[in-house]
């Protein structure tokens, strides 16, 4: 899935913060390491939020995000413009998150615990709330953490980050068909866990 980088040399006179990612990377690869700061500032919040979505823990966000950018700094000289910087960065972030999960020995097997027992929020207290209530969102976010990473990450990239199937496939280094099936399977797992929340819909 090799791509060709199209770099607009006409933006050479633009201020650094307006240059394209590719232009900044070229400068970096030519020794202008100061531009790295612009890349970081451009994407730091996206990466922080991606990691937050994957783990749903604030404590780990900054440390892990910084590890991501350190890895990016080390690997950037070898960046070949075969994918967009954006998806390449996300790939590194996802891989770092997986490393962290392995480190924590996170259970990779889905278990059909009820929402009540896993989220700590009692279902009966939710019967009267509206669907947009913060409590529902909290339960959904916590339930998402119970899904195996393999299915959770595509959901995060699609539903929270709004990526296209193509981009997700690029980040996860898999085929689009795989992305579709993981999304479908992951959502089905979520749905099964969340069913007790929505008795009125029956």
């Amino acid at each position, binding site marked *: 899935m090799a791509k060709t980088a199209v770099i607009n040399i006409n933006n050479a006179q633009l201020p650094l913060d307006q240059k394209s990612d590719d232009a900044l990377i070229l400068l970096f690869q030519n*020794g202008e*390491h*100061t531009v*790295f*700061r612009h890349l*970081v*500032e451009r994407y*730091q*919040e996206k990466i*922080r*939020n991606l990691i*937050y*979505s994957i783990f749903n823990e*604030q404590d780990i*966000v*900054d440390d892990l*995000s*910084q590890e991501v*950018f*350190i890895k990016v*700094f*080390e690997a950037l000289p070898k960046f070949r413009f075969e994918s967009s910087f954006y998806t390449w960065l996300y790939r590194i972030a996802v891989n770092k998150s997986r490393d962290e999960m392995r480190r924590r020995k996170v259970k990779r097997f889905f278990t059909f615990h009820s929402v009540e027992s896993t989220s700590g929020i009692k279902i009966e207290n939710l019967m009267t709330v509206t*669907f*947009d209530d913060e409590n*529902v*969102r909290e339960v*959904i*976010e916590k339930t*998402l953490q119970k899904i195996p990473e393999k299915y959770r990450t595509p*959901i*995060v990239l*699609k*539903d*929270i980050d*709004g990526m296209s*199937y193509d981009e997700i496939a690029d980040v996860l280094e898999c085929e689009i068909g795989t992305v*579709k*099936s993981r*999304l*479908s*399977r992951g*959502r*089905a797992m*979520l*749905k099964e866990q*969340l*069913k007790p*929340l*929505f008795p009125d*819909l*029956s």
Partner: protein
Amino acid sequence: MNNLTQKDLERIISLYLDGELDTIESKKLEEYIVEHPTAAKEFEILRITKKNLSSKEKLPANNWFWLKLSEKLESKQLKTSSAFFAPRSKFVMTGVTLLVMFIVGAVYYKDVDTFQKFFVEKKNLVQSSLLSGNILPLFANVTKDDVLNFALFGSITIDSSTNTELRVKNTDDKRAQVQIVRNENRNKLPAVSVTDFCDNIGISAPQQQHVVDSILGIYKQKLQTAVLVSENKEIAIHEGLADLNRAMVSTIVASLEPIQRVRFQKFLHDRNAPYALVAMNAPASGSQVILRRIPKKSLSNRYVVVSKDTIGIAEMSMNLDSIRETVHHYPVGTRQLTAEKFLHEIENLQQEFGNNVVVAGTNNNRIHVSSTNDVLQINFEAPEALPREYEMVDLVKPRMKVPLPPKTTFRRFQMMNDSSFVMEMHPDSMIMQMLKRLPQGEFQFEYGNSATRGPKVKLLFKSNSSKKIFERRLREMKQEQGGLIDLDSLLRESDRKSLQTQPKPAGKMYEL
């Protein structure tokens, strides 16, 4: 759409929610859902889930993300140039480099190649430790009113909650002083705004107001780059800072007509400002003449860098654009954090220095640093007249004298001439930590503590032959470095001191 398996239904709903089904397929699914309540429920749950996830709340932005990241990058000793950590620009730590060269030369004499490798490593280590991380301009967000008050009264607030301010005093061509003063209870006159100033002096013509505004704007940028705080707990003060306000006042005077100068003289006198006008009757200079005489680029890139370990003079080629960019993007509250960092370091330095005087600089330009509980004081002394940082300082004269630094003899760090120095080191200093990691050869270190002179470290040679090798290597180093190192006289003096004050253990003793 016939009866679907559960798996197919989930797949189709998933595609539908992502907008991946075409119109016909979408319509078929919608019809199927109407006919199958169970499918409808599942569809609704997935729709609500997606909707909630897509509106997930974002984390609050972390304004210090880059600063922390740059620290980590540096600690990992990635291959970076010194210009990497923007907005820090390339700078040459002349004094520090010499210090490292001396120490390395003093302890290493086995092999030139190994020495050179070692030297490069240690030099990089020290350079990366000094002024590393981001450099934050202390006065990033000053207004033109602040700049005007600094010009008129020589003081600017660092932190109002602790009543801390930076003051400069400037007496003549030979002496100037920068003070950081805390907790002084004095009745300050209310600040003067630019508008009030123009009204008082009678600057009403738009063109003249524009000139004053331009002067303040240009000097505002100079003030922003004059006091820097590094992430690595050093502070750097431009040696021209003490001239800055005098140059500003003088430049403003140049733009005034004689009648306005009379008003300005009274204005300064009424407010007990530290300056008096000299050329009262001269006509106003044209705006082009005035603005041309303000140097766009500083004559000197020399900063006094103060850290817990040492005081040195660093030449830093500041990238003004980077600084301005930083200032422009300064997050809300950063100035307060910068001021807190600055004050914290000042407190550390005051504890470190006590009432001692620390002398740095060269024979032609000495810098004395001393402190009491409430004041950290940096005196610039030039026995010979040196070119001033700012050309236009002669239209006003200082009204006060800059006191001499207290006379104490403790010399923590002294430049013996432009390229050599001697120092005493704290055993826990960064340099000593570096030295402790060196392989022990024909020399050893001795740690001592003196009631009058504090902790210090001595370098001992075990034999005369070692000492001769050591001296030969130093001479070679001197030749290799184009005469940059001049340690012979230092060695002789150290040798003499050692012989006078210390018993000779196995060989000769040198003080570092």
